[in-house]
């Protein structure tokens, strides 16, 4: 079920009402079927994968709690990792590997062909797999107590606000909340609703509108000119940000309405002044996952320089691969690894320049440019298309770009991007939300009304899927 669908407009209030109507200890009984129903609205059969993942990690967790022998614990951990990553490989990466390995088989003397993958990618598999893996690893390490209540653990895996596109929650944050009492707190509920409204605005008004230009240019790379690629790529940067952070805002807001607090997933990433800073602000739940469960176990930065470089490359390549089974994502990850390594090498240079406003601005613009350049690979259908678009950057500057929208629409889209930046800029020194709640009723209702009309009149209300659903 999509957050921007009519079905969700009926589903969510019903769940909220039921949730607050039953005592806290039985609320999982409301939320768990609701979460499965939310997922099954897309493709019912794939809920079995969630059940499998849930059961494997639930019993693995219990096993870690009972077993003392290191070897057995490690065996159990391997079993959980193999099951979860195996499911991920089969359903997400098999097709990619088969397509790339198949042409090589004759060179190995093999005469058979790898069969095509007959299944579609299960929505959210990367998210819930990483979430359950985080739980298993934490319990294995002894930093998280195993959850004995199967219902609550299943809810941790399938909690509908963040099931299909995150944030990838940690057990220590979410699991205890399922046992705490959450009353209907007016201030918290309205805060959640405001966040949901802002997320919906970002998705249907900004992201889906910008997609019109992005799809036009990226859909026909051969015809693209330099200005068109620049405009479409900058728009894509904001499209993917508004799409994904919009989803996260709705997820966090929906959870907050129900009384649960999810982790922050975005912190104004396009205001970053270095690539490392960007990754502290972009998809925080994933970058911290890779930090905690891959980068640090690999040795982190407490290793030799060559080893550290290798660690960075591994983390970013896998991060790219996490986004999708395509060479474009690997190229995107590799580019970010290069950015980070070069950025680290240039650290003394930046330090000499100081922290003045102008320096920060220039660095911010530079980082945004680099991030946009990497988005070309992320958005293009193939690496070949990406290079076609990059080559197109040098030509066509004497004529206006063909963007597939009217001049009025283009100005509107640029205005929406400007509006988003203005809102985020205003947040740099103060919480806009707190300032907003201090305003008189007529001001707040005026803003709510403007948002309502904005979504109604400007929104692309065709219920387009969120970009990160397919990751």
């Amino acid at each position, binding site marked *: 079920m999509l957050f921007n669908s*009519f079905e969700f407009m009926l589903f969510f209030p019903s769940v909220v009402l039921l949730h607050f109507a039953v005592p806290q200890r039985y609320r999982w009984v409301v939320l768990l079927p609701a979460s499965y129903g939310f997922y099954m609205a897309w493709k019912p059969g794939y809920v079995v994968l969630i059940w499998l993942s849930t059961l494997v990690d639930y019993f693995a967790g219990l096993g870690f709690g009972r077993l003392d022998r290191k070897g057995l614990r490690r065996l159990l951990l391997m079993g959980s990792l193999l099951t979860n990553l195996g499911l991920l490989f089969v359903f997400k990466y098999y097709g990619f590997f088969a397509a790339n390995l198949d042409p090589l088989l004759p060179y190995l003397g093999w005469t058979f062909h790898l069969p095509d993958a007959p299944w579609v990618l299960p929505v959210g598999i990367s998210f819930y797999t990483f979430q359950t893996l985080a739980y298993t690893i934490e319990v294995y390490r002894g930093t998280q107590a195993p959850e004995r209540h199967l219902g609550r653990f299943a809810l941790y895996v399938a909690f509908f606000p963040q099931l299909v596109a995150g944030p990838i929650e940690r057990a220590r944050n979410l699991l205890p909340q399922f046992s705490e009492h959450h009353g209907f707190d007016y201030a918290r509920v309205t805060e959640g609703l405001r966040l949901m409204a802002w997320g919906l605005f970002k998705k249907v008004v900004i992201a889906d509108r910008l997609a019109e230009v992005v799809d036009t240019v990226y859909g026909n790379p051969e015809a693209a000119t330099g200005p068109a690629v620049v405009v479409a790529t900058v728009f894509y940067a904001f499209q993917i940000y508004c799409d994904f952070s919009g989803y996260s805002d709705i997820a966090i807001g929906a959870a907050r309405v129900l009384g649960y607090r999810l982790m922050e997933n975005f912190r104004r990433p396009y205001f970053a002044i270095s690539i490392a800073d960007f990754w502290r602000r972009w998809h925080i739940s994933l970058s911290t996952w890779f930090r905690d469960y891959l980068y640090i176990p690999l040795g982190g930065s407490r290793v030799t320089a060559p080893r550290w470089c290798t660690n960075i490359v591994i983390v970013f390549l896998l991060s790219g691969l996490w986004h999708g089974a395509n060479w474009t994502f690997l190229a995107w990850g590799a580019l970010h690894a290069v950015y980070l390594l070069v950025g680290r090498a240039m650290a003394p240079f930046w330090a000499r320049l100081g922290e003045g406003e102008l320096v920060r601005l220039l660095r911010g613009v530079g980082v945004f440019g680099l991030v946009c350049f990497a988005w070309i690979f992320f958005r293009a259908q193939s690496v070949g298309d990406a290079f076609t678009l990059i080559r197109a950057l040098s030509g066509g500057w004497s004529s206006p770009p063909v963007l597939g929208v009217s001049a009025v629409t283009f100005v509107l889209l640029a205005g929406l991007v400007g509006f988003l930046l203005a809102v985020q800029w205003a947040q740099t020194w103060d919480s806009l939300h707190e300032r907003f709640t201090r305003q008189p009723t007529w001001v707040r*209702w005026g803003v709510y009304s403007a948002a*309502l009309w904005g979504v109604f009149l400007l929104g692309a209300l065709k219920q387009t899927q969120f970009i990160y659903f397919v990751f």
Partner: protein
Amino acid sequence: MRDMIRLAVRLLALLGINAAAGWGLLCLHETSLPDYAPWETDSRLLIMPEDKHLDAAFLGSSRAYLFSRFQANHAITEAELGRTVFNMAMPSGGGVRPARFYFEEFLARGNRCDVLVYFLDPFVFFATGPNDGHKFVWFEPFRLDFFLRMARDGYPRAQLVDYLRSKFGRDWLFQRRELLVEHRSALTPNDLDPERIRMRRDHLYYQGLSDATFRRYRREFVRIAERCEREGICLVVIIPPTLLGAEPGAKALVDWLQEERKRVTFGFHDYVDAVPEPRYFYNLDHLNTEGVRRFMRGFVAPALNGE
């Protein structure tokens, strides 16, 4: 519980205030709309009469819409047929589903007609665009009863939203009379390029020839035919002329119509090749003003007069 009620009341109040503001704007705008003639607007609801008895009403796509959308064409049509006509045909490939909807609205307004002429194009049975996604909602005024009937009828939600939303758009709010007088330009034999004909056919049959789609929209036609029978209205189905030759879906449609005539009473005339001269067309499948005269005089009038 008190907080829940408080929140619900406030949300409803917010929605209510905005709905009232929107409604007020619509009503205010409605008072500024002029009295349109059929050749001045694409809207049919704005010109649809109430409690009137007409000699004939038309349904169809753009190939029939032009019979009234041009002032001269409408005059020619009424003169050649010797009947008063209300034309509900739609531009942009108006399909069977919106046609049925307009016809029901026509009757719901207390109107009557002796004969309903449905200028039926085969392609409208083979695509969802002219039916469920037709943009007639963009040029019709907002009428709550019409909206509710659409909702009850199971129109796609996107269409309902578009209907409401388009009333706050620039095109609707700042609309003006769009007078079309006549269409004099004409094709020559050189314009009958097989490649252009093929492209036009492909455009009309962009979803191919799906039997499921055909069956689905056949039901809409049956509802029109049955309603005519119940109301005592004589239904005449005419396939209008084009230069496209037999359309891909034509045979299936004609066969089905012939079969259906055994069950429901309606007249049927296939005039797709009746006007083969390019000079009567302004493009491959739309008659110009002289073409309308030729078609009305030579084919529609005799068909309605039972000749």
